């Protein structure tokens, strides 16, 4: 790697540490989203508001099909919103006159079923972002990718294709792919949904380690209440479709956290508190027999 490139990378890491805590504030104000497939109006999100502080690890929970993914899609710029505004660090992402946010490397999504490009190796996937943005040359991007993959414990798998590694490893690689771009917000859409309990707990620890290191704002959607309380700073409970903010639970458990937290009294109480709120909504959703909005 050239001197310049090494210096550039040093720069970027430094930026991470200083700028981290002042960036990534999400402000969602009275957002409403109405879908109109084939002339049928579906109200997905109904005047939902929430404020996410910079560097906050925020968890979004709610019953299936309630519209949580719609919110995430709106923030990421995949869908438009019908009314309301979303701000990122006081800059308008989308709102009146600009219904769809521009997609960008400041808000990167980690997808539910994994979206590592199957035709690129893990390292090539990770290197993709800096390379297409022109931030690093191909060579340097690949070097940095290998380095970051090694940091995440995936060093020997850099040259493998996503189809050759386990889903846990693929998901971790996807998170590395996001982080190499120093995003302001990391958007996670039920990333560990399809995993068994053991793999999940490893994923949790890995994610916590990453968060402690980078303090990036995380917007994490999940069904799993224990996951929510274990990982997050604040848990936002949403109602059934159309979703509104029902309750905010503050998780005061100190960091760094480890699996011993799971058996603590405080943890149990928090889970109960959240569960009471979610359970009602879950029953409503079950009665409506909703299919999930993708």
């Amino acid at each position, binding site marked *: 790697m050239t001197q310049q490139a090494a210096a550039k990378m040093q720069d970027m890491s430094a930026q991470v540490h200083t700028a981290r805590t002042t960036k990534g504030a999400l402000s969602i104000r009275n957002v409403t989203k109405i879908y109109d497939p084939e002339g049928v109006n579906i109200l997905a999100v109904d005047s939902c508001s929430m404020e996410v502080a910079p560097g906050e690890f925020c968890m979004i929970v709610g019953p299936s099909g309630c519209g949580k993914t719609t919110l995430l899609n709106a923030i*990421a*710029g*995949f869908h438009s919103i019908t009314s309301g505004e979303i701000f990122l660090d006081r800059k308008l992402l989308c709102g009146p006159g600009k219904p769809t946010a521009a*997609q*960008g*490397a400041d*808000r*990167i*999504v980690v*997808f539910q*079923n994994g*979206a590592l*490009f*199957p*035709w*690129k190796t893990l390292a090539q996937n990770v290197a*993709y*972002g800096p390379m*297409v*943005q022109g931030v690093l040359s191909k060579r340097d991007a690949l070097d940095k990718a290998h380095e970051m993959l090694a940091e995440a414990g995936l060093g020997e798998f850099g040259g493998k*294709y*996503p*189809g*050759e590694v386990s889903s846990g490893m693929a998901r971790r690689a996807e998170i590395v*792919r*996001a982080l190499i*771009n120093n995003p302001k917000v990391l958007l996670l859409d039920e990333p560990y949904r399809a995993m068994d309990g053991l793999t999940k707990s490893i994923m949790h620890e890995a994610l916590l380690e990453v968060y402690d290191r980078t303090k990036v704002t995380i917007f994490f959607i999940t069904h799993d209440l224990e996951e929510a309380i274990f990982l997050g700073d604040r848990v936002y409970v949403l109602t059934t479709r159309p979703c509104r903010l029902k309750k905010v639970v503050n998780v005061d458990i100190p960091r760094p956290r480890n699996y011993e937290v799971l058996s603590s009294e405080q943890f149990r109480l928090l889970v109960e508190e959240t569960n009471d709120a979610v359970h009602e909504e879950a029953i409503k959703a079950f009665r409506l027999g909703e299919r999930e909005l993708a």
Partner: protein
Amino acid sequence: MNNHAIATTAGADSKLAAPTRLSLTWYRLKKKLRTPTPYLMVLGLTLWMVTWWLFSEVWKLPRFEKMPGPVVLLKDWLASEPFYGISFFTEIYYEHIWISTRRILIAFAIATGLGVPLGLFMGWSKKFKDYAFPILETLRPIPILAWVPLAILMFKGFEAPVIFLATLASLYVTTLNTLLGVESIDESYFRAAGCLGSKPRHVFFHIVVPGALPFIFTGLQISVGVAWFSLVAAEMVSGDYGLGYLIMQSYVNSVTVPLVIGMVTLGFVGWFTSALVRRAGNLMMQWRVRALALEGR
């Protein structure tokens, strides 16, 4: 594949080495030989050959006696001075094969060179697809051979119309499959690329093209088959050289042995070209080959 998994997870103490390519092949062969499958295969083929032989040469059944049996066929095919003029030793046999194959290569090259970009572009731009697709779909139901008279009118000589027909047939298949390939790419990949700051040209080269490759290659395999189909028909209708012509001429001259040799050769060459395309596809799509291997395929 199990051996490989054990070898990597067993750690430093493992004395199991992952089997190398030759021993792996041998292992697979031995395993296969223990199942009844290969013996049944031989049985099936032998049964077929024997029945054919009995029907046409030994018992001389009413309709079958007109067709050459396998023995007669092989005698001529392998003879250095064949009675009917076509065998592995005659030059003209290879000329026919080469001429047909060359036409296929040209048709395939043109069809792929036009069809893949066309399909990619139709998948990429909805506007373009809205204009181009209806024209394609309106022309496609017209059978290729129905174009023969028009082809003869439009193109001078003999080679051009024949190649035109084969190209047209391939073009439909290639374009459609490429289009399908692009449309089959999961939306998430496009979204991920967008999140990561890609410009449109990045998306095209890094997502669309590789993502569509599996369908493109399936299409290419089919298009080779379709090209042969059309080529043979065209050669039969109006010909001077080539396997289709050979078959037709043998028919006209009532010599059945070269006729059947022609047919069998055609089958083989068709299969071979298809297999070549499939191989090329596997080479270009290493990621798929490796992932499928892990699934035991």
